[in-house]
């Protein structure tokens, strides 16, 4: 159903495909940037990914004025402040971030701090309360195909002193350019390839069924689901298959664009809580929770879930499935998919496998109902509902 009103923005220019990295210098020049700061993490520096980026920049005559690799797994305000200080000291004029979710969120935080001329990003916490500010050229190179951060308007940064996870939602967090290059993801191990792709699939499915859904987010979500489902097994089996890798990268980006404009719901609300309280990796939490949460939402979202079957399977299967069974078939397809990935690369299927304890359910449920994602979930969920989902997924 078309919403009475909606907004949509996906402003980043996409550079995708072979030698995409080599086109970054031209983009930077067009954006007025000559001496960017390069942000990445120590693992990517160690395995040579950072060098690949540096080589591509160097080939186009761009030498970063500063490189920062000490970014922790959870983005923090202290890291953001340290990078902003280095940026100013080194006379940088733009940001290039290569990494996963934490590197990208940190880079978004740095850009916010620099463009808004403030000293503490805590002041900007909230939703749509940030203006454009000063233009800071910003290029993102994702190294996983899951978070979709390169196209989202969300950043989560931890305030270490106050022990608060600060959530920022603003269209001005989107980068100027997002670069998808197959070289950035070929080294991802099979299990991580599978879990991050399931995260992207979850973004697309939730985007397709949440309250903020709109015709444009639906188009991105459905295309993302088709691309991920058709290429996931190939990429897990053979990580060197560049075509499958690029399909997952594109799927992840499109899923990011979809959920950025439609938001995610109960799967993410519970997943964030499991991450914060039990330390469950986000993508694994998504894989485990997705079928159970779809079952929970079924009475409100049956029509949308039924439509998803067409994007997850071939036309013949869709046509031969009776209309009233399509939604449950979609959930069954997801279950089959996670089971196959479990056999292929050991992707966890239960919360028990990832070390969640039953005694933490109450705390997790409390955190989940307070998560911002819950507001756009089509069905109301209280702590008892969340505990019941957790029990089933345990």
């Amino acid at each position, binding site marked *: 159903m078309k*919403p*009475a*009103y*909606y*907004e949509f923005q996906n402003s980043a220019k996409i550079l995708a495909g072979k030698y995409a990295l080599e086109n970054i210098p031209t983009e930077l020049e067009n954006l007025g940037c000559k001496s960017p700061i390069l942000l990445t993490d120590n693992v990517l520096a160690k395995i040579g990914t950072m060098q690949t980026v540096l080589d591509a920049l160097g080939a186009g005559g761009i030498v970063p004025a500063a490189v920062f690799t000490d970014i922790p797994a959870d983005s923090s305000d202290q890291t953001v402040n340290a990078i902003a200080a280095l940026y100013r000291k080194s006379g940088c004029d733009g940001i290039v971030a290569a990494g996963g979710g934490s590197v990208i969120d940190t880079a978004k935080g740095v850009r916010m701090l620099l463009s808004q001329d403030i000293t*503490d990003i*805590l*002041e900007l*916490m*909230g*939703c*749509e*309360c940030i203006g454009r500010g000063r233009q800071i050229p910003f290029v993102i190179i994702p190294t996983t195909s899951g978070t979709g951060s390169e196209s989202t308007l969300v950043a989560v940064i931890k305030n270490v002193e106050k022990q*608060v996870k*600060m*959530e920022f*939602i603003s269209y001005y967090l989107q980068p100027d350019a997002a670069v998808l290059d197959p070289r950035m993801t070929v080294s991802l191990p099979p299990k991580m390839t599978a879990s991050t792709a399931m995260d992207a699939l979850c973004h697309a499915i939730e985007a397709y069924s*949440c*309250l*903020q859904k709109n015709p444009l987010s639906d188009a991105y979500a459905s295309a993302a689901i088709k691309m991920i489902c058709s290429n996931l097994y190939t990429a897990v089996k053979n990580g060197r298959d560049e075509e499958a890798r690029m399909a997952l990268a594109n799927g992840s980006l499109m899923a990011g664009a979809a959920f950025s404009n439609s*938001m995610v719901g109960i799967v993410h609300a519970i997943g964030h809580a499991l991450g914060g309280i039990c330390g469950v990796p986000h993508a694994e939490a998504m894989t485990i929770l997705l079928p159970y949460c779809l079952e929970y939402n079924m009475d*409100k979202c049956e029509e949308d879930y039924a439509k998803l079957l067409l994007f997850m399977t071939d036309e013949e299967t869709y046509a031969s499935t009776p209309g009233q069974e399509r939604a449950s078939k979609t959930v069954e397809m997801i279950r089959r998919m996670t089971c196959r990935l479990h056999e292929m690369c050991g992707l966890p299927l239960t919360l028990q496998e990832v070390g969640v304890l039953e005694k933490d359910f109450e705390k997790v449920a409390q955190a989940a*109902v*307070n*998560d*911002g994602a*819950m*507001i*756009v979930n*089509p*069905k*109301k969920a209280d702590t008892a509902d969340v505990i019941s989902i957790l029990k089933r997924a345990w």
Partner: protein
Amino acid sequence: MSLKKRLSLTLKKNICAIVLYFLFGALKQLAACDTRIAKEISSWPEGMVYCLKASKNGPFLCFEKSGDSLNRLKEYTPDCRNVRITFKSIDSAFLVLTGQLGLSGSYSAHGFILEGDVQKTMSLCRCADLAEGYLFPRVMTRRILKEVPEKEHCTLNIYGRILLGMFTLQYRQICAAPQQYLSRKA
């Protein structure tokens, strides 16, 4: 601006101001008699301030938690510990405050901007949903809420309490305690 639009804005602003006043009355009374709202409010930190602003220049409701109850404040001073919801236009606020759209629906339609912690806002949304369950007839709440909440008291009883609170001046605006504020400018 045309006269028609000006009149419409004035009318909507006045209606929003009245509804915000009643909404505060409902929250204050329900804090004392509805166990779910009392539980939500008890989870807020002491001195926590929420502000609902019906557009940039529109009427607003600002209140702080004080013990088990709520105090209505004269003004809002931005502070990263507090939460302010500002509707983007008086028309967006009017839809919510007259029961044509729920808060979650307004959020989905980008109806407001939010300054502060998103998690703290979720508790306020739950309180608002419960209060709407009492203030608006079922035919409206069924359309705007994801689930119509069960009432612990009858609506007439709540309306009676709100009116009593009004006549006993329980909703008059007070100044917030100065230590509440940080240095951030308004």
